[in-house]
């Protein structure tokens, strides 16, 4: 099992790794919105180019980044096939329909739309993958807690969420070890986890899950004692050792990503009827 502390982190030193996790998280959100708004291949090309620049800056090997696509390959292929098959064409003159069988057909606009959605999915996966490859889960949890801070105004217990995330990250390897230990103990007494049909296998997990839950509750009681002993009182008046500070680079990167979003919106809506926008709409779907 991969170490949860480092998660997917590719441990090299780079400007992207050093950037503030909160900035990366915000940029990721802006990026996702941008990719969803973008409506032409030319805009995708621009986004992909910028993404490539960030990837090169991060010094994470491109293959490592691309391997994050493995998880969604089935989804992407299925989406592509159905988009192509179910698209009836746009009825234009120059439309060529290649194959027809029953209710399905393969036509130019179908292929275009399919490819477009495929690009969108790939971009949507690679961007966030770059964030997880360059940020530790601990920093991510801190960033999320910080970004949720405005919710304190409507009495959402943001500090508790942060504490829960921190403890969950902390406890995953411990509970994983415990699971292994319990499984071994049950195996030693003749339990069998890898035979029989799916129901038998699920049934075989019950004697693992029950002791696991019991021990998790015991641990949580101990942890509560230890936390209280160390003056925890629900985060009232708590300060932080590590003060998160946005650096100039973080702010510039956030502004640039906001500028990209704005640029894409201009390309999509062309509020001011600028003529060059037509170029960015090349390959619009």
């Amino acid at each position, binding site marked *: 099992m991969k*170490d949860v502390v480092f998660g997917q982190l590719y441990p090299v030193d780079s400007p992207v790794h050093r950037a503030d996790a909160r900035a990366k998280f915000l940029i990721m959100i802006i990026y996702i919105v941008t990719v969803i708004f973008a409506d032409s291949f030319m805009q995708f090309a621009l986004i992909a180019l910028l993404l490539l620049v960030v990837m090169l800056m991060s010094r994470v090997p491109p293959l490592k980044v691309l391997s994050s696509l493995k998880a969604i390959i089935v989804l992407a292929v299925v989406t592509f096939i159905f988009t192509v098959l179910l698209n009836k064409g746009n009825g234009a003159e120059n439309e060529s329909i290649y194959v027809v069988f029953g209710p399905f057909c393969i036509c130019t606009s179908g292929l275009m739309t399919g490819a477009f959605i495929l690009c969108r999915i790939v971009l949507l996966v690679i961007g966030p993958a770059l964030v997880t490859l360059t940020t530790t889960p601990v920093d991510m949890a801190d960033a999320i807690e910080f970004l949720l801070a405005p919710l304190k105004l409507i009495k959402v217990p943001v500090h508790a969420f942060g504490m829960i995330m*921190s*403890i969950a990250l902390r406890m995953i390897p411990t509970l994983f070890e415990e699971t292994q230990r319990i499984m071994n103990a049950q195996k030693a007494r003749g339990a069998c986890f890898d035979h029989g049909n799916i129901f038998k296998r699920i049934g075989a997990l019950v004697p693992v899950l029950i002791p696991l839950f019991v021990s998790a509750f015991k641990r949580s009681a101990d*942890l509560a004692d230890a*936390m*209280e002993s160390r*003056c925890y009182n629900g985060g009232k*008046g708590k300060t*932080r050792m590590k003060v998160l500070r946005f650096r100039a680079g973080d702010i510039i990167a956030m502004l640039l990503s906001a500028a990209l979003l704005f640029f894409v919106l201009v390309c999509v809506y062309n509020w001011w009827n600028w003529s060059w926008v037509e170029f960015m709409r090349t390959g619009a779907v």
Partner: protein
Amino acid sequence: MEEANKTIISVKNAVYKYNRDTEDEVTALRGVSFDIAEGDFVALVGANGSGKSTLARLLNALYVPDEGEVLVGGVSTDTGDSDKLFGIRRTVGVVFQNPDNQMVASVIEDDVAFGPENLGLPPAEIRERVDYALECVGMSEYKKGTPFRLSGGQKQRIAIAGVLALRPKVLVLDESTAMLDPRGKKEVLDVVERVRAEDGMTVVMITHFPDEAARADRVIALDGGKVVMDASARKALSDVETLRAYGLDAPLPARIAYEMRKRGALLPDGIVTAEDLAEALCGKNI
């Protein structure tokens, strides 16, 4: 014991019951009284179920006694005032048995910072305390690392650092070596010796290992929720018969001396450590 020091913890006739007023009521402590002075090194010994871990939780107000009271620095632990509660927990730091169940963060220095962060100290002071605490337990070079790959002894030293970062006056170790291998035990005990020697820390060590209790100056033995022995470590631990009556073992050298005395050897009283025994044997021709 040294000169009459200021009393820092005072337990007065404390009674504690689990599941009070239900069918499952269990009385863990039945009127326990003792005083601990600043700078004392006390070992609390007792068989399983003697109430010693319950007592540890009374000392820093995790539990409040049902009868009697516990005073820390003159303040009763039975207080709803969170400032007073903070004061008590800053004074008495408790390290528990399982190091895995005491850590809240996945990065060592963040975990050590947890206590001072809760106190609301300024970041620079937290940093200073964390560095000091990690230095104390000799784990400074691991501070950016994670606790998962450490040995049990190292993890427990981190847990001690987490408590030391609160700068307590009293360090309570609730069977903190019970889950460790001999090397881990030694690591933890060495840290305890160091904070005692360097900072004059008051230490209350709860243990069922007689050899560990032998490091203390004073031994308090519990049985069935009552104090059955409260004497200097030398006197208490060399009393093999009494200890045995309460389900406790004396340290091995004390037991050897006891058996030899039974067989007619003329050995002096108060043999607790291997050095004592060696001295007694070599100084005398049997």
